[in-house]
């Protein structure tokens, strides 16, 4: 039980355990003459493009909102804590929370734009174009989601520092807010890459 608990909490242990299991399985197949059965390309094609696309859209909005929420509670805790002594900071520092909210807006924009590409493929045979769309939506969704988690955390933690610096001295607010603005650019890069990747993808059901 100790062993399984350590797997759950230690990502390095989990990664090494799973890679050891995968290596053993791969070598077993290789040495018993079933090497062709370890076919990554088969699984990439066997998973339907509907699944790739839908998981991408879900991750786009889901992970973006995780990033935004993380940032918002990091800022909120600092504003409310410092606001006990210095109530004047509570209104101005809402701008940091709005920057975190923008991260979630990027996610929802991307999710809505991508969901316009979903549709019904009427004779159910997928062509190479459908797979292209599926893969691009999956990876774009993952890009915007994970970049927005990074951005939300950055804007949140620097926003919390902004609130504390503002509580100390009101003249510092704008100077320290600039750091959060630099951080919010990361989420915008994720949005740009996602829209570029899926720009050429054709709709399903076209």
């Amino acid at each position, binding site marked *: 039980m100790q062993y399984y608990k350590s797997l759950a909490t230690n990502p390095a242990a989990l990664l090494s355990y799973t890679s050891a299991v995968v290596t053993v399985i791969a070598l077993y197949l290789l040495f018993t003459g079933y090497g062709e059965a370890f076919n990554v390309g088969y699984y990439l094609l066997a998973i339907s493009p509907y699944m790739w696309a839908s998981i991408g859209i879900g991750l786009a909005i889901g992970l973006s909102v995780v990033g935004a929420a993380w940032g918002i509670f990091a800022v909120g805790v600092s504003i409310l804590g410092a606001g006990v002594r210095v109530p004047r900071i509570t209104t101005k520092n809402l701008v940091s929370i709005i920057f975190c909210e923008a991260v979630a807006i990027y996610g929802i924009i991307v999710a809505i734009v991508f969901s316009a590409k979903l549709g019904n493929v009427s004779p159910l045979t997928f062509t190479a174009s459908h797979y292209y769309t599926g*893969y691009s939506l999956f*990876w774009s969704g993952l890009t915007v989601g*994970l970049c927005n988690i990074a951005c939300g955390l950055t804007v949140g933690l*620097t926003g919390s520092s902004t609130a504390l*610096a503002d509580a100390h*001295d009101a003249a510092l607010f704008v100077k320290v807010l600039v750091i959060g603005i*630099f951080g919010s650019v990361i989420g915008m890069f994720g949005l*740009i890459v996602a829209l*570029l*990747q899926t720009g050429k993808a054709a709709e399903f059901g076209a």
Partner: protein
Amino acid sequence: MASATCPVYAHFFGFAGSSLAMILTSAGAAYGTTKAGVSIAMAGTFRPDLIMKSLIPVVMAGIVAVYGLVISVVISGNMAPSTPYSLFSGFVHLGAGLSVGMAGMAAGYAIGIVGDAGVKGFANSSKLFVGMVLMLIFAEVLGLYGLIVALILNTKATNEC
């Protein structure tokens, strides 16, 4: 239309490269911005005149994210649904994305920690500024190496089906 050298799933690896370039460099840039930024806010409370000069680590962390953006755009510009795309190109683009991504993540991490200590030291003693900037430049150049290798790899991708 699909052949053994240009299978249908080749685009998966190309997109993986483009996405990983952006995701991993974003993670590095985010760490650098946050770590240095919190220090700048703290040091700014007792030396507000030095805040503008102390923003250098934050700017350099942002540049790491730009490296990832450049490679992502270059890789995804080479992919289209109707042009032939070989599995070789897919793997080359995956390698390019990983090279700039992992290098950028490490560079951002280093910029964050050096910026954190550098800003705190600079607020205490102005003579440390040049030393901090030199160390940040060396950390930034690590990400640049990843960008160079990614660009070299990208030129190697050919699409012969």
